[in-house]
């Protein structure tokens, strides 16, 4: 066996993995699908959604598969009782705070883990009005799961624009601009990358949103185009 390869077991299967490979990668090679929400190939993994947690050698705490490296001769379980309890409870608690209607992958995760959508009645939801402040996209933070990916691509992971931040903390955390200024007043360059990495319907191109509202072409055009600058200056 090559020196840069290690062996371990995942869900009872003997697996060889490259040294430094994450548990998520090694499991995927075996066709074992570990669910993820915050993880995205194009962004720095922060291991924060924790739905990818797995049990490594029955350790005191579970490990996030997206960032935890495979350890030689370890025994990984991706689907045991502890793992499923955490995964299911996280999904149930999330569903109690956030509208997940436009997040089919998360809905599927809930079904796969027997998560009860009504598990936490009378919960405080992260409510938010739809923000329609620019011609390119709308923001509906009632659907935001706080995966951080939009903030990351706006910053060092892609665009270096730094229009977005996280404000407040805990359950009150919210993605926002500085002092909640409108997008057109912010440094946003409307590159669209935040929309591309959003795992829910929180960020949406304005045309798509307008079509969902049943708007016809003329109205969509009025919504998303501002006219030529020369014409605007004259007006």
């Amino acid at each position, binding site marked *: 066996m090559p020196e840069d390869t290690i062996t371990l077991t995942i869900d009872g299967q003997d697996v060889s993995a490259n040294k430094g490979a994450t548990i998520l990668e090694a499991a995927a090679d075996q066709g074992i699908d570990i669910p993820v929400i915050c993880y995205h190939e194009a962004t720095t993994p922060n291991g*924060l959604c924790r739905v990818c947690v797995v049990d490594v050698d029955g350790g005191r705490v579970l490990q996030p598969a997206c960032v935890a490296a495979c350890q030689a001769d370890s025994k990984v379980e991706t689907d045991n009782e502890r793992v499923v309890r955490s995964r299911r409870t996280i999904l149930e*608690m999330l569903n109690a705070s956030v509208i997940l209607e436009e997040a089919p992958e998360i809905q599927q995760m809930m079904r796969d883990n027997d998560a009860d959508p009504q598990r936490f009645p009378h919960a405080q939801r992260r409510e938010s009005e739809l923000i329609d402040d620019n011609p390119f996209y709308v923001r509906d933070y009632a659907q935001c799961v706080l995966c951080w990916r939009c903030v990351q691509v706006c910053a060092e992971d892609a665009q270096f624009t730094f229009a977005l931040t996280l404000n407040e903390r*805990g359950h009150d955390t919210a993605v926002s601009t500085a002092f909640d200024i409108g997008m057109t007043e912010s440094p946003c360059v409307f590159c669209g990358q935040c929309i591309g990495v959003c795992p829910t319907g929180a960020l949406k191109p304005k045309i798509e949103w307008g079509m969902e509202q049943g708007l016809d072409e003329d109205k969509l055009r009025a919504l998303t185009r501002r006219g030529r600058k020369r014409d605007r200056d004259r007006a």
Partner: protein
Amino acid sequence: MNDDITAICARYQGRGREALLPLLWDVQTAQGSISPAQVHQISHMLRIPEADIFGVIGFYTLFHDQPTGRRIIRVCTDPTCALADADAVLHEVCAQLDIEPGATTADGEYTIEHSPCLGLCDVAPAALVSARGEPDRAMSQVSAAALLDGWAGDYFTPAGDENAVLLDGGLASAPQSLADYGDYAGLRKARAMTSDQVIAEIEASGLIGRGGAAFPTGLKWKFTRAAAGAPKYVVCNADESEPGTFKDRVLMEHRPHLLLEGSALAAYAVGTDRAIIFIRGEYPKATQILQDAIAEAAAAGLLGALTIEVRRGAGAYICGEETALFEAIEGKRGFPRMKPPYPTTFGLFGKPTAVNNVETLCAVPPIITRGASWFRSVGTAGSAGPKLVSVSGHVARPGVYEIAPGISLRDFLERQCGGVTGQLRAVLMGGAAGTFLLPSEIDVPLTFEDLREAGSTFGSGAIMVFNDTVDLRDVLLRLGRFFQHESCGKCFPCQLGTQRQVEILERLDAPLPGDRQRLHDIGMTMTEASICGLGHTAGMAVMSAMEKFPGLF
């Protein structure tokens, strides 16, 4: 409000993002809040995006992005202060001003807020007050009158007895001066030794960290010394914020030079001349005392090339987590990092860092001067050396006590604290992140190993005593609110779990079917799946209460 902060900015000319919290503190103190125009100016000055600065202001509760009253009054309403009628004080203040907590009076004179534990549990109820342009003040045994009619007076925590070492034979009412403390004999002795010898002495003493995680101090220093990378850092974690914990405050306020000498010894051992003390923003008195003591020691030439800088937190319990603390010093939101890598190899500014609790560093000078064998002679094999605990609630004499580990909790409460007042109902060990002991369980010896065996913990050294007049559901609700307020929001289990937990604790008097199982699943999920120690312990007290007091649920 005058938006011009040019004079403040000038103090930070040429510095980078690490200067953000100190600069924001200067603006907050001078102006009462930080405006968009000021953020714009700071952004250019320190080369930080405006959105990032806004996010930092929003993270720390002592910073404000909206105008505040000329005076800000924050009343602690955590469990111990609640026993001392803090709610009534807050209510009375609000009634007299005709506002709700969180609001500002129409004349712009007062802003009134709730506060998490201020570390003045022995002299409850406590408040932290700020007047525009003046240093913040912590106040003890407050009444509405004291909070509204001038802020006179000072507090003093009597502590220690004739045998105390860390507390030096019982403490005087003023900070110990350099003349009274001595000329850092331990440091002089250490300088005649090699760094490895100093580390070996600390290892031989069996000193384990006093912040809560109980990691062997000598080993931590050894790893830091051996790690590649420069400069290295010694960071003192003085972000003591665990409800019911105030031993580090007392050490800093009474024996500042003991901490400075301990920090200097740590720096000598790991091989650096950079030490930073990160102190919670709610400890203005200790902050000033430390700054004065550093100036005194430097003027006396005791520190040599070592620089010791005091960095002030700004209202975030999470910054007691060592990696979140680094983020705060680096000028960011206090999010805990993923570990590994550990601080000994990748700490502050990505450099090898030894981060130690205040009490841990204070134990170092006597170990060096008296020897490891002396330290071992106090306590037990697994819990060597004198240990400080903070006692609050229903005892005759709340305060900070130095114990020889091994004494039973019962004997300690009776002999050193003057006994329990009323009929004992429960003892909460380790603060909000701790566990309950029943009256039948207090014969447990106070050692790391015996408490672990009993399913309990020293944790931060907090011992909160409750008699049978206490509504334990109310205690749990306040603990739940504390964690909901202090969760940083990074990982889903803690961000969502602390919220869901408090929602259920709010209806404990009329629970829904299934609430017990919900609390259990929330607690286990936070414990097993969260990123850091805050989440790992945020359900601890509730799960402990479900086991010890099933009738409450």
